[in-house]
């Protein structure tokens, strides 16, 4: 093996192989390949080893049986099917709302049967799901909302009905878009979730009545998510975001809603014995 006069050369090689160098350093190191054939050979050989390790240690995904054995027996609501004849725009949104409302009714019907019909309802409680899990599942499903409001009145009426206080959003800055609403049971069964994108990143804001707030665990560091809380009038807002600061909750403001519209499928459901 060629004797190296530079005692840091092995460290530089490892740093290069491990992608620990910045761009100028990397380019300078690569220029030495022209004069150091052995260095180049080491880099190529490591590439061969890495490729072999990736192939040898590429696991198959977990089996369906394993996943089934881990999940609870309760069924999930079935995906609402949008008729092929549905068009875009308002008609599509209405059809989607009707289909999803039907699915939501089935879900709430099951929930009512499960909790009201059981003599053991007090002990079942409300299954708290970590916000990071709710977020991740939503992202994996395409970050699709349950419901897209047609106008401000529908938007404000939704929060009035579910949280007892109308809410609107001030105009959002460039790069921040509202995606829609969802009912994800994040804090309570009645929580309303606003889904948004900030510079393309999915962000969720969970809205609930202040007197129904609960202590929520912060996401772990490995989730890459941050949780922020603020109180607004009689409500509490939580923003779950991959960004270092909240970007959406600031824009909510409380409003009166003199003639609220009826929002099908937005009825909040109290679950007896569920700690609500």
């Amino acid at each position, binding site marked *: 093996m060629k004797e190296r006069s530079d005692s840091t050369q092995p460290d530089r090689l490892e740093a290069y192989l491990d992608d620990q160098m910045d761009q100028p350093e990397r380019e300078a190191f690569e220029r030495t390949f022209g004069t150091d054939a052995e260095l180049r050979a080491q880099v190529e050989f490591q590439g061969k080893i890495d490729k072999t390790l990736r192939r040898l*240690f590429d696991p198959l995904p977990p089996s369906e049986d394993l996943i089934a054995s881990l999940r609870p027996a309760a069924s999930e609501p079935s995906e609402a099917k949008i008729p092929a004849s549905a068009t875009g725009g308002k008609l599509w949104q209405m059809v989607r709302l009707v289909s999803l409302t039907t699915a939501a009714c089935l879900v709430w019907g099951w929930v009512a049967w499960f909790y009201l019909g059981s003599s053991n309802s007090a002990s079942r409680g409300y299954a708290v799901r970590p916000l990071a899990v709710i977020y991740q599942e939503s992202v994996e499903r395409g970050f699709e909302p349950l419901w897209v409001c047609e106008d401000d009145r529908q938007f404000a009426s939704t929060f009035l009905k579910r949280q007892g206080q109308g809410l609107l959003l001030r105009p959002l800055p460039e790069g921040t878009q509202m995606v829609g609403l969802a009912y994800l049971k994040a804090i309570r069964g009645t929580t309303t979730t606003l889904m948004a994108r900030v510079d393309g990143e999915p962000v969720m804001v969970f809205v609930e009545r202040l007197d129904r707030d609960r202590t929520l665990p912060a996401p772990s560091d490995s989730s890459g998510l941050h949780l922020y809380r603020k109180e607004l009038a009689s409500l509490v807002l939580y923003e779950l975001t991959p960004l270092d600061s909240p970007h959406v909750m600031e824009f909510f403001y409380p409003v009166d809603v003199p003639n609220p519209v009826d929002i099908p499928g937005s009825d909040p459901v109290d679950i007896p014995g569920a700690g609500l």
Partner: protein
Amino acid sequence: MEKSRTTPPQAVSGASVPLDPEAFAALFVRSYKRFWLVAAAITGDRTHADDIVQDAALVALGKLDQFVVGTNFNAWMSEIVRRSALNVARKAQNRSTTPVDPTQLDRSNPGSATPTCEDGLALHSTGALPEHQIDFDDDVMKALRQVSEVARACILLRIVQNLSYAEIAEILQIPKGTAMSHVHRTKRVLREQLKNPFAKKLRDSEASS
């Protein structure tokens, strides 16, 4: 109704809430590959990693009340996987050193606590590999078994899963700097072993004389 009350946003710190099975299943499936790599690294072999991770999942399911939501799920689950893998490795070690009939002793690998990689290679190959590649694969597996379990886990999580050192440190509960040292050192060892294993043995024997 009070409308003027408002508070500035505050970052939320941790609080204790139990994990439900559905949340556990979602978190487990999402990080399944990492747990599989930890299992394969501990045993030095891929053959039983599936079973080890499955067993660990069932153990974890029975211990959900001990997990605090908001703490590091991957680190908690990886520790359970590690213990399951160590049990398997120890049993394999005991089997390989237990006297059996001479034909079985001939097929065993006395220098290793784990079976050969042939079954695993067949499991993961999608077609016939050139013979030199099969030999190289065998050599890589043998060289990998020369380093410690933690070093194996570090290099596999880094190279196969492309995890950051912060993520590796969280999963294995070691400092970031230690994880990086393991990866760099193991890469160097693998290159030396695989390029010229006889030259290395010669250098080692010369150094010790």
